[in-house]
């Protein structure tokens, strides 16, 4: 049996194994390049993650398909995220011809006068290149501005508005990355740097000369322009006394080597001046003159130029080599640069961390778990038709293997982040899936009737699909803002509340199974019905415990953070509703107000309540927890709620319409789990 499971797993592994890199850039050691550390959006990460997350936002995939009009059997040329990133930063004019922007809305395609689907001429009608979109930049900008001004509330925006904003964001991100190494407005970076250094050197000898001062200010403004692109930070802290906070962008590093360490402060002051300049009455305001004074002070205390740092030199050499197609120089410079990083104590930690992260990126544990759960689900269902023990056992071992992979992924993520498992909406989906599969396996261990398997695998699969879609927003390992930066509360409140979600869903799926099997099949015999009811009841108890504890722990966190145990925030309220709903189910059951079928209907409604709390409250776009706003999911949520209402309606049909119940003589008269004498609670299945 186990051997069969292993064989199946090996098949999955074969299916996911990626083909080796080929194409014109095969000689470049891009997999080494992918492991270089950079800092983007405040996070220290490998180029591999930066590139893949950017590509996901631009074209919804982690790889670039350069011939998207071809079907897969025609073998379109694929570029890895890193190959795309290398081309974008070092051969931008080539990257500008690659069809990497995905546009979904037909109106936007026609507005920008982009070509329709035409496979003969290499056009799939969905993916376009920077060069193709370029004539429409102004149009995109105007449309985006209109949307942002007229519809500040995301809920008002229609699908066209959303795709305009999405394209604008994609274009901005592309531009940010494009300027990472060599700014697009320079043809020879090192020559420009030398020029700046010459100006700075003569300024250092004569600070009172107005002409010199203007020349240097002009230079700083130029480089500040580039700095304001928000490119990734690729220049590591060079001196030994710098910490890992010392990463800079190319522009800041150029200014730093020309003017000393005042560069960051100069840029910040300049940024403030720019911010206030546009406002009415800013000229002559005390704030403005104090900022100007600070700028001049910083300039006066600037240091004489220093030599060009080796890291910048290495990047420029790599860029030029990549441009020429000179893989030998590229590879040797890369190897030298990596050695240099390894000997730098401020970045040695980043280097090992990025290597780990690249390994994790290529493992794709959650994506690879999905087909395992689907197969196990089908095997579990198959078991109910013929009670084939082989199918059930195979399903069990597959889920167990999937669960192991799921757990490995979860732990790896925690290790990478140095955080508890749940830090954002994406990881909550992963964790709900994990908890559900775990509960499903536990149920199966006790009952051995494939119910736990089917419920666990289906929930595991669905939540991983949700996570996969949430990951389309970009980086899933983003840094946490100050108020969330506390591992104790993330580890207790968030984990427990998420387990509460998971168990409420497991109970809800058990109940769905009861209704579907009872109404549509003859498979729900009395024993199965009773065991399903006991499982459901037990899991509801479990869910009550976890959602209650999790919710009040959240209250205590709030009391610690802003002095309010309960603030009626939408997410808090959502969690409270789950607690109240589970309490209602239990009390209704104890009071004899519902029996087997009533219990099931109430529990299905628990799915609605939980989905509202998990996603619905975020869609309101208000409150302290609205960190995960998304509008696209609105329809899915609505559809899911509708499906649950239909199931409840089916579950409320009188027994004569249930295929499993109509022939049973005294079917529904019996309570789900007869109360022991003395009025004690029915026994929960599992606690």
């Amino acid at each position: 049996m186990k051997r069969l499971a292993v064989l199946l797993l090996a098949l999955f592994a074969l299916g996911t194994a990626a083909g080796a890199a080929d194409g014109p850039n095969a000689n470049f050691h891009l997999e080494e390049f992918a492991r270089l550390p950079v800092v983007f959006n405040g996070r220290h990460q490998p180029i591999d993650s930066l590139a893949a997350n950017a590509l996901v936002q631009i074209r919804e995939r982690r790889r670039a398909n350069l011939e998207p009009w071809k079907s897969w059997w025609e073998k379109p040329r694929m570029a890895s995220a890193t190959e795309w990133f290398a081309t974008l930063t070092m051969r931008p004019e080539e990257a500008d011809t690659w069809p990497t922007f995905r546009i979904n809305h037909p109106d936007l395609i026609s507005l920008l006068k982009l070509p329709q689907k035409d496979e003969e001429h290499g056009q799939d009608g969905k993916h376009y290149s920077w060069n193709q979109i370029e004539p429409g930049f102004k149009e995109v900008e105007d449309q985006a501005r209109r949307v942002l001004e007229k519809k500040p509330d995301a809920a008002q925006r229609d699908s066209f508005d959303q795709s305009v904003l999405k394209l604008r964001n994609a274009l901005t991100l592309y531009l940010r990355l494009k300027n990472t190494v060599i700014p697009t407005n320079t043809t020879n970076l090192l020559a420009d740097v030398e020029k700046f250094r010459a100006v700075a050197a003569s300024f250092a000898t004569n600070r009172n000369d107005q002409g010199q001062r203007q020349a240097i200010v002009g230079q700083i403004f130029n480089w500040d322009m580039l700095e304001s692109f928000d490119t990734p930070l690729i220049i590591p802290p060079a001196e030994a006394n710098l910490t890992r906070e010392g990463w800079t962008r190319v522009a800041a590093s150029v200014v730093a080597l020309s003017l000393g360490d005042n560069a960051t402060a100069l840029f910040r002051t300049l940024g403030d001046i720019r911010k206030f300049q546009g406002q009415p009455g800013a000229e002559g305001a005390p704030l403005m003159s104090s900022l100007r004074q600070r700028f001049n002070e910083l300039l006066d205390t600037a240091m004489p130029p220093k030599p060009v740092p080796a890291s910048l030199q290495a990047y420029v050499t790599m860029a030029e080599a990549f441009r020429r197609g000179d893989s030998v120089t590229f590879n040797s410079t890369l190897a030298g640069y990596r050695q240099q990083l390894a000997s730098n104590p401020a970045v040695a930690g980043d280097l090992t961390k990025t290597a780990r992260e690249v390994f994790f990126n290529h493992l794709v544990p959650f994506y690879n778990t999905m087909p395992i759960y689907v197969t196990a689900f089908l095997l579990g269902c198959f078991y109910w038709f013929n009670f084939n023990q082989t199918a059930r056992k195979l399903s069990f071992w597959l889920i167990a293997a999937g669960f192991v992979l799921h757990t490995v992924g979860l732990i790896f993520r925690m290790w990478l982040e140095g955080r508890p498992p749940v830090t954002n909406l994406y990881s909550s989906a992963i964790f709900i899936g994990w908890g559900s599969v775990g509960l499903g396996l536990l149920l199966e261990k006790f009952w051995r009737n494939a119910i736990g398997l089917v419920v666990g695998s289906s929930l595991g699969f669905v939540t991983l699909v949700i996570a996969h879609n949430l990951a389309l927003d970009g980086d899933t390992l983003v840094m946490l803002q100050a108020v969330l930066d506390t591992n104790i509360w993330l580890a207790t409140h968030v984990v427990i509340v998420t387990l509460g979600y998971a168990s409420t869903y497991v109970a809800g799926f058990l109940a769905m199974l009861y209704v579907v099997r009872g109404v549509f099949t003859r498979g729900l015999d009395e024993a199965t019905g009773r065991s399903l009811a006991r499982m459901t009841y037990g899991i509801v108890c479990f869910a009550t415990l976890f959602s209650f504890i999790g919710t009040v722990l959240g209250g205590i966190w709030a009391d610690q953070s802003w002095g309010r145990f309960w603030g009626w925030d939408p997410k808090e309220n959502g969690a409270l509703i789950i607690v109240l709903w589970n309490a209602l189910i239990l009390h209704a059951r104890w009071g004899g107000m519902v029996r087997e079928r009533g219990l099931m209907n109430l529990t299905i409604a628990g799915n609605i309540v939980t989905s509202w709390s998990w996603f619905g409250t975020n869609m309101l776009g208000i409150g302290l927890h609205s960190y995960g706003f998304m509008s696209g999911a609105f329809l899915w949520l609505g559809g899911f709620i509708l499906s649950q209402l239909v199931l409840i309606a089916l579950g409320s049909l009188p027994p004569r319409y249930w295929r499993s119940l109509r022939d049973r003589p005294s079917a529904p008269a019996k309570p789900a789990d007869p109360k022991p004498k003395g009025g004690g609670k029915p026994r929960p299945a599992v606690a």
Partner: protein
Amino acid sequence: MKRLLAPLTSLKLTVTLLALGIAVVFFGTLAQTEDGLYVAQARYFRSWFSTWSPHAEGWKWIIVPLPGGYLLGTALLVNLLAAHAVRFKFGWKKSGILLTHIGVILLLVGQLATDMFARESRMSFAEGEWRNFTEDFHKTELAILSDAADPSMDDVVAIPESVLAAGGEIRDGKLPFTIRIKSYAENSRIRARGPMVDTNTPPASTAGVGARAVMEPAAPTRAMDSRNLPAVVAEVLDPAGTSLGTWLFGFVLNPQTVTVGGKEFRFTLRSTRYYEHFSVKLIKTTHEVYRGTDTPKNFQSRVQIENPGSGEKREVDIYMNNPLRYGGLTFFQHQMGRDDIDANRGTSVLQVVQNPSWLAPYLGTIVVGLGLLVQFLIHLVGFLRKPRA
């Protein structure tokens, strides 16, 4: 007696109350999108009854009547107490349920106490400044200041907003005059009177800034982090009952001086202040963001507390998730900014909470947690001993 109490003890009542509770919480959450947190909270949770209607045009005829949070909390409490008094029989097997219910009672009572006794205010200052008072973000007062015997102090008479809103005449033993409220606006816009535009609009008042200004009432604000800017037009009458003129006092206006019987009084409409018996000085602010982003990484205020009563004098850091508890108050880091005039001088806003019942939820949580755990362990042991169906 037992028969009388029977309906109050029933589980049916419990289930009904829980269902109503869910409805109230749900509609109270929905209402926040339009009404803002503060208004919705008062309307749905800190009330006895309420109704909910959709805001969308064409759907406003839908009216959902709802019990308020107070009514539901009280009813649940009565139901729980009655059930334990009449129906519930104690046994070790039910000890978990008993504990759980005691904890729930603690949470309900604690929340009610918080609602009644807790006070939230803010302390905002720039680096180097001292404060011995906090300001209420939602409440307003008309403060009348005059020189006290001690030249470093002022005599203050503060008239709360509710008194201003009630209108009529206001007298105070410490004031040698009467104030007659002419008009009051909960939220307002005050602008200079335009020479060409406002030919038909009379000035807001006869004396002070108001003589050159127009006050327009505005709809109360709903956003969570903005406040109303109230305004009041008042007539000042000397002891003989002679009018000295009318003045416009607005939240956005500077203090205005009114001279009565040779003594100067400074009138100002401001956030209600709560004075403390100690002072706090903002020494240094730290505002860190993640490298290359605007995402906040750390907000931190270093302050010095000085208490002349106890002779205490110490410095302490307040930052996210690390509040300061002192003198019955808790200080939380709330906002951070920079001074309008000197960009290098940091400013900080601390949220200050006085809540004598803050421990209740902690106790309640522990008791409920224990109760649920005990109950589930009892059942788990029973389940594991029994052969499965």
